[in-house]
């Protein structure tokens, strides 16, 4: 993670004005490179059996029309169908879901039921990467580990009104 390897776009400030970096499909190149390479052909969106990938709106500026994942609507189920169909190299053709680096989940201790003393382990149960990514600590509270790939399933299933676990988009790239 981090800003290493991310060249600042000449007009990155323009995009920053509009919206936070979106959650990209698995295998996505770093954000700037992704927006430059993605030709908006829709192949990744059409091959996704869950309809997780929707075109970004105008608020994303020059990235409008590129595929984004909106976890609270439909998260990525890591079926790994989309990376190999990308024709332009915007998605690296990875097939191992553990190599995905879409983002990283963050728990909000102020709203998470487990932190408030209510028994809840929905996110831990639903995490597709299991113990590598999301475990419970001694007080049965969720703890996000290094193995989190940012698929957003936890954000989707969180029973609170505003999700207490949210995926922050990574700067992009594939885990080595």
């Amino acid at each position: 993670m981090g800003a290493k390897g991310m060249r600042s776009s000449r007009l990155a400030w323009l995009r920053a004005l509009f919206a936070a970096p979106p959650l990209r499909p698995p295998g996505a190149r770093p954000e700037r490179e992704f927006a430059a390479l993605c030709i908006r052909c829709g192949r990744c969106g059409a091959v996704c059996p869950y309809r997780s990938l929707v075109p970004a709106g105008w608020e994303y500026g020059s990235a409008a029309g590129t595929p984004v994942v909106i976890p609270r609507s439909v998260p990525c189920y890591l079926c790994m169908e989309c990376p190999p169909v990308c024709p332009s190299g915007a998605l690296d053709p990875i097939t191992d879901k553990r190599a995905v680096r879409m983002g990283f989940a963050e728990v909000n201790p102020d709203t998470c039921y487990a932190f408030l003393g209510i028994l809840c382990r929905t996110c831990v149960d639903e995490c597709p990467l299991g113990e590598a990514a999301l475990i419970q600590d001694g007080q049965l509270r969720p703890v996000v580990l290094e193995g989190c790939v940012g698929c957003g399933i936890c954000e989707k299933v969180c029973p609170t009104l505003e999700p207490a676990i949210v995926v922050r988009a990574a700067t992009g790239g594939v885990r080595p």
Partner: protein
Amino acid sequence: MSRPVLLEEPRSSAQRRQWTRWRRLCQALVALFYLLLPWLNVHGYRQVVGTLASLKIGSLDLTEPAAGLAAALGAGRVSVVLLVGVAPVVGLALLAGPVFCSWVCPWGLLSEGVDRLHQRLLPRPWRERAWVRVRTVRWAMLAAALLLGGLLAMPLAAVISAPRLITSLPLEVIYLRILSPVTAGLLLALLALEVFGPRRLWCRALCPVGALANYLRFPKTLAVRFAPERCLCPRLPLCHLHCPWGIDPRQAGRFDGCSNCLACVDGCPSGALTVGWGSPVGRQSRPRDDS
């Protein structure tokens, strides 16, 4: 054929429409394909996916070259996948010029329809609005789209591409069940240009897809050829009137935008125009009695 023929019997109207009939069939099949494809995807068939920007048929990749070039320029690198996908489409443009525009592109079909409605429904000043001269505009617009796209680090030529947008719309509506404001907004803007702008401005001057295919053309390609000794209408050439691109086929050069739609061949009463392998007519064979 070098056999001198002074007067040939006029061809029947059925004969004179044959190329256009095949072309309409081809255009309609492509449009139907892109309408049905998302529906197939909905029902779990995902061996064929994509739009006119890029289509995957099994393991075959077909990527639109202007979009590919824009992506390569924006990112400063070219991937092998992209080169492989672009190759067959580039090959077609090299050998036949921008045939894509008149035989494949669903936006082209729509644009021809709008133009025809203009000719039928609108008052004379609308109908008689001159064609814009495109010889320089076209490559300037292509260069501008590629340069600006590179500057903004986005494949602008793919983003604004009407062929892509009109095939993205059914995919998004039928498969994703959403109406993207980006796709819909850009399409509406293009439609407004089509309805209120100069005749067929997008296809002839602005479309990066058609422009790139036009300039990729080899010196010798599939082309309309002109036999001046057979031409019967030097003053008011029917072929020129029939051309949906506003080109005079008797004078068209290599980069003048002829997309081999063959409407001129269909419209020529004397058989002076034929389609074949060779250089486009060019200026060397311009009829001497013209102006």
